[in-house]
Every structure is written in C-alpha cells, then in structure tokens.
C-alpha cells in the first residue's frame, strides 16, 4: 500500500513535465539532497477567523532527511505540522505525506507516521511501560517497548505514573511514543523543550540514529543550535510564510557572512587593522579587540598581527551561526 501511494504521486510528478527525481540508493550518504519526497506541500494555507496563520507555504522533505521548521512563537510552525498530520484541515493548497492526503486518508497516514505533540498529555495514573505497550498495540509490527525505554533512558521509571514524571521524562516518553509504531516519518514538535543539556545532546544523537535507521524527521524547534546540529535543511517561517529555505550552511553563507575575530591587546593604535583584507570594522571593548569581517578574515588578521610583532594567545573567531541568520531574517524584536 505504501509503495502504491508513492508511485502514483511520483508518476504524477513526471507527467507534469518536471525533472524526474534523483533516485538515491544510499540515503544516508546523500544528506541534504532532496530525494524521493515523503512530504510535498504546495501553497498550504490555514486561516483562523479570517487571519491566515499559514499563508501559502510550499516545501518538500526528502526520504531520510531531517527537516527543520524554525520560527518564533506564533509563526505558524505547529499549525503547518498539524495540517500535515491530518489534525487540522487546511483551507487551501495541496499536501501529500507519504503519498497520502492527510485530509482524507488520515487513518492510514497515522499508522505510518509518528507525532510528538505539544500541549498534550497522558492519563495521570498510567505507568510508563503501560503507555508504551498501549500505543504499541495500535499497529502490527510495533517496536519493543522495553527497547524504547532503554534507548530513551526510561527503564528506571518504567513503573512510575505519568503524573509523577519530571518535564524531561515526560518529553522523552512522548518521543518514545511517537516512535513506537516504527514510523516512516516522525514529527517532533519542540522535542527538547524541558530537557537538560545532557538529555538534549542524547536526544540529538538518538534522532540521528532514528534517521540513520531510515525514518525521515520533521523537527519543529526554536533552538537554533538544535537545528544547526541536526537538520539537513531548514525552513524559516515568519508570519505564516517561508522566508528562508535551505541547508544551514547555505543559509549562513547567504545571510550571515560576518565573522568576528577577537583577541586581547595592550592599549595602542591598531587602526592599521582596518586596512587588512576582508576587515570591515575594528572596535575595542574592555581590553579586547573585536574585528568584524568576511571571508578568510581570521587568517589575514593573524598574519597582519604577527607582521606587527603582536602574538595574542587568545586569538579566536566567532563563526556566524544559524541563530544570527534567524535574527537577521526575522528581526530582533521579541514577541514575548
């Protein structure tokens, strides 16, 4: 059944005269390349009371990809994902998830996807192992609850009631529940919210492992570090529309080329630094010097410093990251 849905979509795409898809044999080796899409969205629109919360969103997610959806609160991330999961009915646009229409084929779709939702819970008095076994019973061929509890660090909490779990433990249980039907595609919405740094790193490793085992991942997040480390491609949503789409590296190269070089220096005239290739700006701050520039500015500055007999021990460069891209695209205002 799965194959049928995908093939019909595939053929449809070829009939429409577009370039045929690149067939990938080793999906894992082709990180960042869109191969056989598990999600195709065209012009998705969702309105609440006349206001478009999602306004003409289009993107594709390839099989085996970790796709990030970024945006501030209220940008339309969760609504987009809920339309794809068949939890909300879109007002416009076309969607195919695993070759299925979420609006009309939700039951089959939900057997093949996993959803870790925001704002939902479990019965207060259910135990961890009971919840996993319960959700595992919904589909044939589900994952072994014990194995999931071990992977997600819940073994010693297996007999704990849901109401007695900490925020981080609940979050890990929700992720485990999203994976229990061994989905082809999993939606993780604010997955690491409430996790401590160590648990967050573990979660990232596990999500990579999930992908390496063949599951495609859609990651909704507002942690830029998470997106940068995990995602093959990201879409940045702002007021219901996609304002940037690409690999984290490409977005950084396009939107945040500024590199900041820092080092400590004694007082003295360093004005000549402004003439070094690639340097845009030089500033002093509490005994340290900040040089802003682009390209191989670190190497140029280092060479110039050595040429002037200055050898700072703490010379370093802050590479631009996704966070700066995000802020430069969506502005620095806060809605909080």
């Amino acid at each position, binding site marked *: 059944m799965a194959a049928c849905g995908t093939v019909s979509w595939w053929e449809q795409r070829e009939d429409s005269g577009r370039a045929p898809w690149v067939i990938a044999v080793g999906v894992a080796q082709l990180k960042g390349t869109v191969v056989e899409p598990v999600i195709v969205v065209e012009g998705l629109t969702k309105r609440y009371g006349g206001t478009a919360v999602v306004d003409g969103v289009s993107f594709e997610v390839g099989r085996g990809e970790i796709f990030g959806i970024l945006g501030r609160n209220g940008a339309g991330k969760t609504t987009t994902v809920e339309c794809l*999961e068949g*939890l909300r009915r879109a007002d416009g646009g076309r969607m195919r998830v695993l070759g299925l229409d979420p609006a009309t084929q939700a*039951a089959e779709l*939900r*057997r093949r996807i996993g*959803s870790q*939702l925001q*704002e*939902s*819970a*479990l*019965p*207060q*008095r*259910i135990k961890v192992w*009971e919840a996993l*076994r*319960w*959700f*595992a*019973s*919904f*589909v*044939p061929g589900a994952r072994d609850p014990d194995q999931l509890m071990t992977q997600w660090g819940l073994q010693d909490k297996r007999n704990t009631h849901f109401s007695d779990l900490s925020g981080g433990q609940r979050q890990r249980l929700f992720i485990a*529940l999203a994976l229990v*039907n061994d989905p082809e595609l999993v939606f993780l919405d604010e997955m690491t919210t409430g996790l401590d740094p160590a648990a967050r790193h573990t979660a990232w490793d596990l999500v990579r492992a999930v992908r390496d085992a063949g599951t495609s991942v859609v990651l909704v997040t507002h942690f830029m570090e998470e997106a940068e480390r995990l995602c093959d491609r990201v879409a940045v949503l702002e007021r219901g529309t996609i304002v940037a789409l690409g690999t984290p590296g490409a977005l950084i190269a396009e939107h945040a080329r500024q590199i900041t070089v820092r080092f400590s220096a004694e007082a003295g005239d360093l004005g000549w630094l402004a003439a070094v290739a690639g340097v845009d700006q030089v500033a002093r701050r509490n005994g340290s010097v900040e040089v802003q520039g682009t390209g191989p500015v670190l190497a140029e500055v280092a060479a110039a410093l050595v040429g002037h007999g200055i050898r700072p021990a703490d010379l370093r460069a802050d590479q631009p990251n996704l966070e700066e891209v995000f802020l430069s695209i969506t502005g620095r205002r806060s809605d909080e």
Partner: protein
Amino acid sequence: MSLRALQTSAWTEAKLFVREPMTVAFTLVLPLLFLFVLGGVFGNKPNPKYYGGHGPLDFYVPAYIGLVWASVGLLALPVHLARYREDGVLRRLRASAAPRWAVFGSQAIVASVIALAGGALVIAAAALCYHIHAPRSVWGVLAAWLLAGVVFCCAGLLLSCIPTSRGALSAGLGLFFVMMMLSGAGPPFEVMTGVMRHVSDVLPLTYMTRILQAPWLGTALAWRDLAVALAIALAAATTARAVFRWE
C-alpha cells in the same frame, strides 16, 4: 484488523479505573448504601398498597441494577472522557494510530465490567441480607441489562461532549440524582405527586427501571417503554457523533 488494540486499550483503561478510588467507591458502594438504607426501612415484606404488591427489595434490586448503569454511564464515562479531552489525551490518541473503535470500544468494555460488578454486588447483598426472590426470567434480565448499558453509554457519550470535566461532572451529577430519586430507585410511584410523576416520565432511568423490573418480577413488558429507551439511545448517539470533539 487485530483485536489487540481493543484488548490492550480495555486492559489499560480497566487499570486506570481501579486507580481512581473515588470513582470506584461512587459506582460500587453508593448503590449498596441505598440498598441497606431502604432495605433496613422497608425489608422485603410485600405490602399491597405499594410497589405493585411486590416485596420492596424485589422491586428495588432491578432498579438499583439500572442505577449502577446510570452512574457508570452518566458520571464515570463522561467525566473520564472529558478529562481526557482537557488533558490532551484525546488529542494524543487521535494523532496516534489508535483506531477509533478501540478508543470507544474499550470504554464500553470497562463500563460493562464495572456495571456488572456493581450489579452483582447489589444482587449478592440483597440475596444474603433480605432473601429477595430470584428473577422470573434470567435471560430477560440479562437482555434488559444489556439494553440499559446501550442507553446509558450513549447518554454518557453525549454528556462527554461537554468540553470540560467540571461541566460533565455537574451535568452528570444533576441528572444522576434526579433519576436516583424519581426513576423508581427512590420513593415508590404510588406516593409521588403529580409533578414528580411528570418529571419521572422524561427520565431515561424510569423506562430502564420498568424494563429491568418486568423480567425480574414477571410483570408484562410495556413495548412503549422499550421504544422510548431505544429512541433515547439513538438520539443520544446520533447527537454525540455530530458534536463530539477530540480537543
């Protein structure tokens, strides 16, 4: 389609029910309390003026069996489902691969087991303490019991459409107590005033009490009662189907 989803859901729900001591006490102990209070007052000696000449306890036991179903259907079921909605459990179930028939089927199974246990407790206590007469038709009582389950589960599904558990609890409690007093599980029809009888006539439990009493006491079953009970179930189920929200 495998039954494993239904089995596991029912088993999980049963365990969750047992972990709520208040609900257990309310559904299982309250009808027993009634039985002992009214049994202590009236005993089971027939009085030709009341209860259609039947022994009071012979008259009350089938009514209490219906009352247990009313408490499961009007209180336990809707409050449980409304709390699931409030907590986002329904939302999570909907997003999962859970088949809908397993979600609602497991509720019906657990409700039946509780109602069966509650009914059995009432019968056992009445038989031991007040020597009630055995039902004239066991199969008839069983069939009437099943019908009571259908009627009150449908009514409960309708009540579970109330968005919050607090609202569902208020509505359920209101209905339950009115039915408890005026549907035949309280004062006999013979002593009710005109207004009480009119109210009694619109309560589902009134019809279910008579339907349960007929095979138990060996009186004639009024087909009109049966038609009304089925109509209530159908109307409640149809409305619930249209109105029920998962979040």
